[in-house]
C-alpha cells in the first residue's frame, strides 16, 4: 500500500506547502511508502521532495491518495480517474467574489476551485478539514463521508531561527507601538479595515504608532495600490508599512518587533498567522469571521463588529492594561498547545490508521 500526496501547486513557505511537507515527513517516520506529486513545484522546494504529477505511477485499489484542495485546477476533475482510496484535505477556497475588479485570474481560479470541490463531494472516501468552518463548508457542499477536523501542521521550529537584525533594530525600542498583520495582500483579508482601525488608533490614542502589513501583493497589485492610496488619503502614509515579499528572517523580525496583532479578515480556512502571533506572544485582536474563532479557541480578543474607532479603543485598552494583556497572552499560550507539531502529527497518523483500518474491515 502506498500513500500518495497529490496537489496542484506546492510552494515553499505557504500554509498548504508546509502542511504537505510536514505530512510527508510524518508518513515517512511512521514507515509508510509515500511520495508527493504536484503539477507545479516551487523552486525552493527541496530537491526530490516532490515529483511532477506526470511521473506519478499508476495507483491500485489498495493505495491511498491524499488530495490537497485549495484552488481551481483540472486536477480536481481528474482525481476520480485515479484508482485507490481518496482522502481530501480541504484547505478552503476563497469565495471568488472577493476578487471582483482586482484579478480575473484569481476570480476564475477561486470560482473553479469551489466548483471542483462540489464536484468531488460524492467521490471522496474521507475528509480532513483544517477547521470546523472548513468542515461545515464541506457538509454544505454535499459531502456525506466522514469528515475530521485536523489543524494545519505548522513548522514552529522554523520560527526559532534568527530574525533579521537590521529590520529588528530598525523597528524595536524606538518608543513606537507596532501593530502587525501578516498575510498575503488579498481582498478577503480586508487590510483596508486594518488600516481604518489603525488610523483611528493613530489619530486618537497614540501618534507614535505604526502599522506593519507583512505580505506579498503579487497578483493583487490593483488592490495593493488602492490600499496605499487609502492610507495616503487618511494622512497616515508614513505610518503604514507594506513590506511586500520579504525573506523569512525579515518576517521573524517584524513579529519580534510587534506589540499587537490585528486581523480583520472576512474569510480564512484556518489563518496560520494567528498561531504565529500566539507563538511570538503577541496579543491578538481579531474580527469574528469564518475560521477565526475556531483557531483562537477562546483566546485572543474577538470583535463582533467592525468599527474602526471601537477597535482602536480595544487596541489602546489592551496595550495599556497589563492584566488584560497578560490574560490574553495566557489564553493564547494554552491554545497554542493544541497546535504543537507532535499533537497534530499524532492525530494525523491516528486518523489515517483509523481510515485504513475502517476501509479494510469493509
Amino acid at each position, binding site marked *: 500500500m502506498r500513500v500518495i500526496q497529490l496537489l496542484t501547486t506546492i510552494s515553499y513557505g505557504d500554509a498548504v506547502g508546509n502542511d504537505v511537507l510536514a505530512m510527508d515527513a510524518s508518513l515517512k517516520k511512521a514507515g509508510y511508502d509515500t511520495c508527493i506529486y504536484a503539477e507545479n513545484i516551487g523552486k525552493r522546494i527541496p530537491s526530490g521532495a516532490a515529483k511532477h504529477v506526470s511521473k506519478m505511477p499508476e495507483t491500485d485499489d489498495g493505495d491511498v491518495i491524499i488530495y490537497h484542495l485549495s484552488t481551481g485546477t483540472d486536477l480536481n476533475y481528474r482525481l476520480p480517474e485515479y484508482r485507490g482510496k481518496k482522502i481530501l484535505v480541504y484547505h478552503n477556497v476563497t469565495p471568488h467574489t472577493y476578487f471582483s475588479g482586482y484579478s480575473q485570474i484569481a*476570480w476564475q481560479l477561486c470560482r473553479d476551485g469551489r466548483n471542483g470541490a462540489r464536484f468531488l463531494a460524492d467521490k471522496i472516501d474521507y475528509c480532513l478539514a483544517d477547521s470546523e468552518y472548513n468542515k461545515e463548508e464541506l457538509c454544505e457542499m454535499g459531502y456525506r463521508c466522514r469528515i475530521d477536523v485536523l489543524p494545519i501542521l505548522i513548522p514552529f521550529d522554523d520560527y526559532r531561527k534568527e530574525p533579521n537584525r537590521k529590520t529588528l533594530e530598525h523597528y524595536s525600542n524606538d518608543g513606537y507601538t507596532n501593530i502587525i498583520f501578516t498575510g498575503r495582500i488579498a481582498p478577503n483579508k480586508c487590510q483596508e479595515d486594518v488600516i481604518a482601525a489603525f488610523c483611528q488608533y493613530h489619530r486618537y490614542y497614540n501618534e507614535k504608532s505604526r502599522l506593519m502589513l507583512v505580505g506579498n501583493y503579487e497578483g493583487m497589485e490593483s488592490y495593493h495600490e488602492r490600499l496605499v492610496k487609502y492610507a495616503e488619503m487618511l494622512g497616515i502614509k508614513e505610518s503604514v508599512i507594506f513590506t511586500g515579499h520579504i525573506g523569512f528572517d525579515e518576517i521573524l523580525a517584524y513579529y519580534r518587533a510587534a506589540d499587537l496583532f490585528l486581523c480583520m479578515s472576512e474569510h480564512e480556512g484556518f489563518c496560520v498567522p494567528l498561531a504565529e502571533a500566539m507563538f511570538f506572544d503577541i496579543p491578538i485582536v481579531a474580527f469574528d469571521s469564518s475560521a477565526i474563532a475556531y483557531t483562537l479557541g477562546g483566546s485572543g480578543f474577538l470583535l463582533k463588529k467592525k468599527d*474602526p474607532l471601537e477597535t482602536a479603543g480595544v487596541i489602546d485598552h489592551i496595550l495599556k492594561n497589563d492584566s488584560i494583556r497578560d490574560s490574553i497572552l495566557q489564553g493564547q499560550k494554552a491554545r497554542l498547545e493544541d497546535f504543537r507539531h507532535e499533537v497534530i502529527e499524532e492525530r494525523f497518523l491516528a486518523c489515517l490508521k483509523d481510515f485504513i483500518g475502517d476501509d479494510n474491515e469493509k
Partner: protein
Amino acid sequence: MEQINVEEIMDQIRREIKEKGLSSEMLSFDDISMGGSDKGPSEFDLAYFEDKINQVNQGYFVPVIRFYSGNPIKVLIKKIIRKINSCYIVPIMADQNKYNETLMHVANQMELYIEQNEKEKEALKKRIEELEREKA
C-alpha cells in the same frame, strides 16, 4: 487563567468614546477608486458579465460630497475650493449620474435579454433531443 469579559470591555470603550466626544467619521475605503487594470476575459463569460452588472448597479451613482481628512488647514482649503466650484461641478455631476443611471438600465436590460435567450436556447436544445429520440 482569568477570562476576559469582552462585552464589559467593549461597553467601557464605548462610554469612553462618548465621554471624549471622539468622532467615528472617516474616509471610507469605498471612496477610493478601483482603477482599471483588470482587462477581463478574452471570451464571453456569463458569470463574469453578471458580476460586472452587479458592480455597475452598486456603483453607478457617484456622490458629489466627499469626506476630507488630514491636516485641518488643508481640509478647510479643500472645502472652500469645493464651495467655489460647486456651481460648476454639481450640474456636471448631476448630468453624469443621470447618464450612469441610463447605462445601468441598459446593462440590466442586456442581462435580462441574455437570461431570456439562454432559457429559450435550453428549451430548444431539449426539444431537439426529444425529436432525435423520437426519430431513433
